């Protein structure tokens, strides 16, 4: 146990620091939201007054009014973009990643071939930047802003959807920590010359601590995707009636179970 602790000292310290920093930050009353909002909207706060209507201001020119309305409308565009990016391309990428991982459940060679194929796709860096890095970066930063503007109240209102609301924010934050660590350990390591293959993952997952971390991280990513799919359908006005929303809930549960099975089978195959 002591030996194991020292072997994994680096992992454990990074993990603990991130958890101990993030959790109190999330639950605290710290008003990061206003700060994030300022950065995201590139606007001075006084223009965000809720009760001011641009239509009351007769003295400003039509051009100014147009600029003002566009500035006021940014939140709608950001929120819809956030919702869309979560499914396309991030959700599609998540499924593709987990399906490729599943080659590990077939054989070591199958996994290495699949990983090599993905690595040798043409224009790889552009695919990575536009399909993975930029969408995830935006989704994560704006997602933190959204998570921090909520005041969870499941203790007073313990309804199913309210729990999903809370879990969506929690799993988002957990997934972000996990992805940051996972990218550091694999993609950034690869940029510094490490080879991404079956053995690399087998080494990482040999530690029970890291295995647990991966299980939690992957499951929260899948939960966040499955439940996000449900809210995507509502946010874009696809599921309007209560009945369609209930059926979408069953659908999202199905997505969670199936994708989780694929992911866990792959993880277990490495040990």
């Amino acid at each position: 146990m002591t030996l194991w602790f020292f072997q994994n000292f680096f992992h454990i310290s990074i993990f603990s620091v991130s958890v101990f920093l993030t959790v109190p930050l999330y639950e605290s009353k710290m008003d990061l939201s206003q700060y994030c909002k300022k950065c995201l909207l590139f606007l001075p706060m006084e223009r965000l007054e809720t009760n001011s209507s641009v239509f009351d201001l007769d003295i400003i020119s039509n051009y100014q009014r147009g600029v003002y309305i566009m500035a006021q409308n940014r939140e709608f565009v950001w929120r819809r973009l956030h919702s869309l990016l979560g499914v396309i391309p991030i959700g599609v990428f998540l499924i593709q990643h987990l399906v490729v991982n599943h080659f590990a459940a077939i054989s070591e060679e199958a996994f290495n071939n699949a990983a090599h194929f993905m690595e040798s796709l043409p224009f790889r860096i552009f695919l990575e930047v536009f399909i993975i890095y930029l969408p995830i970066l935006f989704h994560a930063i704006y997602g933190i802003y959204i998570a921090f503007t909520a005041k969870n109240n499941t203790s007073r209102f313990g309804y199913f959807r309210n729990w999903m609301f809370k879990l969506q924010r929690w799993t988002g934050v957990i997934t972000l920590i996990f992805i940051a660590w996972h990218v550091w350990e694999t993609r950034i390591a690869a940029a510094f010359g490490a080879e991404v293959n079956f053995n690399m993952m087998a080494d990482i997952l040999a530690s029970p601590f890291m295995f647990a971390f991966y299980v939690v991280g992957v499951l929260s990513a899948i939960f966040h995707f499955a439940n996000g799919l449900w809210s995507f359908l509502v946010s874009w006005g696809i599921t309007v009636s209560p009945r369609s929303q209930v059926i979408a809930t069953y659908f999202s549960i199905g997505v969670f179970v199936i994708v989780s099975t694929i992911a866990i089978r792959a993880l277990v195959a490495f040990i």
Partner: protein
Amino acid sequence: MAENKTVRFIITRQDTPDSASYEEEFVLDYRPGMNVISALMEIRRNPVNAKGEKTTPISWDMNCLEEVCGACSMNINGKPRQSCSALVDQLEQPIRLAPMSTFPIIRDLQVDRSRMFDSLKRVKAWIPIDGTYDLGPGPRMPERKRQWAYELSKCMTCGVCLEACPNVNSKSDFIGPAPLSQVRLFNAHPTGEMNKAERLEAIMGDGGLTNCGNSQNCVQSCPKGIPLTTSIAALNRDTSIQAFKNFFGSDQI
């Protein structure tokens, strides 16, 4: 034994909008059929707390006393609802009364709901019918649609949905479910529909529709059973179409 039966209240009080809140306990004689408001009136008649000390009467808002005006909303045993329709017989004791924390507190259980009325102005929750000459009668509304719209028109701006919503708080500008549902009501009206785009654009502004995080507490809490989350989802669809029209262009407004 009946004359010994009592009711216990623990009330969160606050003397001024800025001072700290404190709890005060009251014990009242039970009367059959009493509700929270009749209990508060009893305290007002004889403002003595459970320790037997003389205190100030409790301040609260009320008007219709039949759950249609929305003025007397407060947190009763943790859940926001109207105190006029909260029957003591159906409540667990001690009965805890607290002001709705989403709104600025004026005094004790009395809160300032102006932000809701400001939001109704912001989303243009009315039907413009004035002209410089007689505009004549408007288009007819089908009876079935009128009956459907009546359900949405039951909203009394009581604030319960805002209190229940995790996204309506001091950190966000969200206007809350009630004014959003009113946009759906006025957009459904044959004359109101003529200004549909204006209302949709208003809720596409900051603090508007997209702030909804789908916790769906509002629809669970609404005392009038208004399908708030269906309204929000329907408006999501309408604003998707409106955004498409605005960006790609269309002959319609």
